[in-house]
């Protein structure tokens, strides 16, 4: 049951603090009740459908933007794909610039922020509600999203702030402010402030609570049931040690282990697909059929589409603006090159890794099909009934464990590491937004870090529903502001792109390898 609150977040939380203990007995339930009550209004607003339909306006917002960027930049995802790979390989890197951040490093670091639970748990949620057809829309959204990423990351580099000590800060709040000024447009600053506020919410929601929540789900799956706040406190303590205590070694280890976990995950998925290679054709059949008919899922075609697009956006963050923060620190003379490189991100994240997860879930028969009609059996809550009765990360775990029993332990480790690295990434994004609003300073930064860690505990203790809703809502709210900015600034990107491409053709931009 969701109560609608019009009061601000904190007021609502305080109000429910007084009423909640009467109905809830455990700490987890209390946290959960407060959480669901205090964020409900925000979630309802972001996901309100077009009048008379079940289609949330926010999903249309992202899809339309990605489509516009795709056409505006002339299918840059196809045209620029080869060049993006050449850039990552370092073919165009001046050897004299060695020692600066390479394109590969920027991509790897940005990827470690996006490859995470969205690829494991988010896909399971999409397929669990939207059926196999959601995969089709997810892949499509991934391909389209490449153009959104290209746009925002080019701007991120072009309008970053370079501080006298040599460090850099960038992202939508900077390009919206400076870009609008440059074009003589009003309203840049308020828009940038709005973005920064949503970015902080996003850092607390999708970048934090969702991660803690799913990490706890996976831990109970392996270790047996125990209260969520225990996981929360342990996680919060480690995160705090890293981001506030300067325990850089943990961050470094995470940064190095996460890519290998990602590769291990993909290889395992590939092996499972190879073992069941005779069913791959059938699985793709289900994906295509489901994409256009829904195969009996709640909401039919639209249900599959909404789930696919939502999860893709949540996983690859295209249009959200977070990647622009991560990519903007790269040292490059040409902002467009970083745009090129960043378009590989949704491709690797969504088109490759998310599809792997979806295929494994479908092929291992996790989703229950009614043998008579061939349609998926939908439970009371609108989700497809699964063989193990699982949702979220547990569903993915069940799918992988169906072939390799031991994989649930590897997955548990992967989930925890992914969750951790995503939390670190988002603590960075959130902090950048925070310092944009409040200025830089030790005490101000510490305040943010403490609040961030408190939300880790809340996230681990709350049940999946309210957390996932708030995570989505906060991340999508960022996309609302960011995409408005992108529409106004895309002519600047176009100019950069045209100039770069012509110089590339004329040979002014040299290949070094």
């Amino acid at each position: 049951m969701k109560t609608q609150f019009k009061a601000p977040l904190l007021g609502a939380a305080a109000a429910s603090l007084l009423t909640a203990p009467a109905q809830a007995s455990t700490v987890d339930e209390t946290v959960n009740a407060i959480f669901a009550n205090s964020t409900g209004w925000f979630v309802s607003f972001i996901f309100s459908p077009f009048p008379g339909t079940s289609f949330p306006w926010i999903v249309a917002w992202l899809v339309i933007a990605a489509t516009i960027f795709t056409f505006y930049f002339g299918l840059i995802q196809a045209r620029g794909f080869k060049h993006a790979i050449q850039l990552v390989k370092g073919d165009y890197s001046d050897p004299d610039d060695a020692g600066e951040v390479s394109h590969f490093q920027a991509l790897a670091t940005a990827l470690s922020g996006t490859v995470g639970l969205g690829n494991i748990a988010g896909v399971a949620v999409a397929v669990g509600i939207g059926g196999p057809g959601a995969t089709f829309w997810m892949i499509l959204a991934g391909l389209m999203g490449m153009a959104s990423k290209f746009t925002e990351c080019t701007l991120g580099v072009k309008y970053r702030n370079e501080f006298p000590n040599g460090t850099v800060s960038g992202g939508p709040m900077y390009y919206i402010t400076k870009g609008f000024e440059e074009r003589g447009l009003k309203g840049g600053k308020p828009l940038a402030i709005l973005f920064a506020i949503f970015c902080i919410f996003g850092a607390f929601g999708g970048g934090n609570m969702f991660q803690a929540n799913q990490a706890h789900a996976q831990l109970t799956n392996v270790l047996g049931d125990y209260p969520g706040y225990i996981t929360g406190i342990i996680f919060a303590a480690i995160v705090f040690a890293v981001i506030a205590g300067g325990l850089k070694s943990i961050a470094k280890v995470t940064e190095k282990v996460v890519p290998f976990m990602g590769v291990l995950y993909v290889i395992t998925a590939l092996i499972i697909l190879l073992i069941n290679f005779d069913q791959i054709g059938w699985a793709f059949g289900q994906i295509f059929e489901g994409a256009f008919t829904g195969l009996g899922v709640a909401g039919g075609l639209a249900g599959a589409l909404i789930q696919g697009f939502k999860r893709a956006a949540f996983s690859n963050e295209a249009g959200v603006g977070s990647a622009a923060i991560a990519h903007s620190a790269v040292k490059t003379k040409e902002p467009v090159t970083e745009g090129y490189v960043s378009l590989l991100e949704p491709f690797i994240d969504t088109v490759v890794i998310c599809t792997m997860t979806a295929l494994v879930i479908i092929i291992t028969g996790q989703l229950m099909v009614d043998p008579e009609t061939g349609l998926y059996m939908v439970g009371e809550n609108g989700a497809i009934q699964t063989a193990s009765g699982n949702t979220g990360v547990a569903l993915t775990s069940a799918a992988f464990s169906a072939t390799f029993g031991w994989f649930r332990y590897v997955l548990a480790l992967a989930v925890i590491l992914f969750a951790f690295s995503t939390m670190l990434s988002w603590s960075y994004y959130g902090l950048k937004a925070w310092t944009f609003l409040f200025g830089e300073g030790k005490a101000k930064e510490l305040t943010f870090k403490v609040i961030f860690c408190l939300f880790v505990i809340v996230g681990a203790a709350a049940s999946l529903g309210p957390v996932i809703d708030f995570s989505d809502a906060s991340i999508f709210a960022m996309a609302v502001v960011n995409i408005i900015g992108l529409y106004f600034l895309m002519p600047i990107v176009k100019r950069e792109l045209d100039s770069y491409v012509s110089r590339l053709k004329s040979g002014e931009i040299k290949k070094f390898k």
Partner: protein
Amino acid sequence: MTEKIVVAYDGSENAHNAVNFALDVAKAKGATLIVAHVLEWSPYSFLTKTEIEERHMRRKEELERADKAIVSPLLKELQTSGVEVEVLVKYGHTAETLLAIVKESGAKQLVIGRTGQSSISTRLFGSVAGTLAQAAPVAVTIVP
């Protein structure tokens, strides 16, 4: 055009021996000495977000430190030798970068110090001296 000799220098004692050896050769031949200092760096390593943010600043610091602690003291020493000396400080994989310097400068010889280590990692991945002895297109002198 005078002949060129590349000598690798990392501030260690062996490297110092290598420089002295190369200096004698250069004197005898009237050659130019190219002192190369390589800062080990891979564009394919993984960095955290904060490391990326600070990289440009750190690179500057690293170059300044290399100049102050390693290159400048050596240059001072070589000032009186009467041999023409060039200095190159570069980032990269040590052996590959030295090879690139040799090729680019058209040097006829490469002089390096032996690290004298026999650690497990050397056994597994080979040493810089070993790699250069195998791969260099010019004569390589390894000074103990």
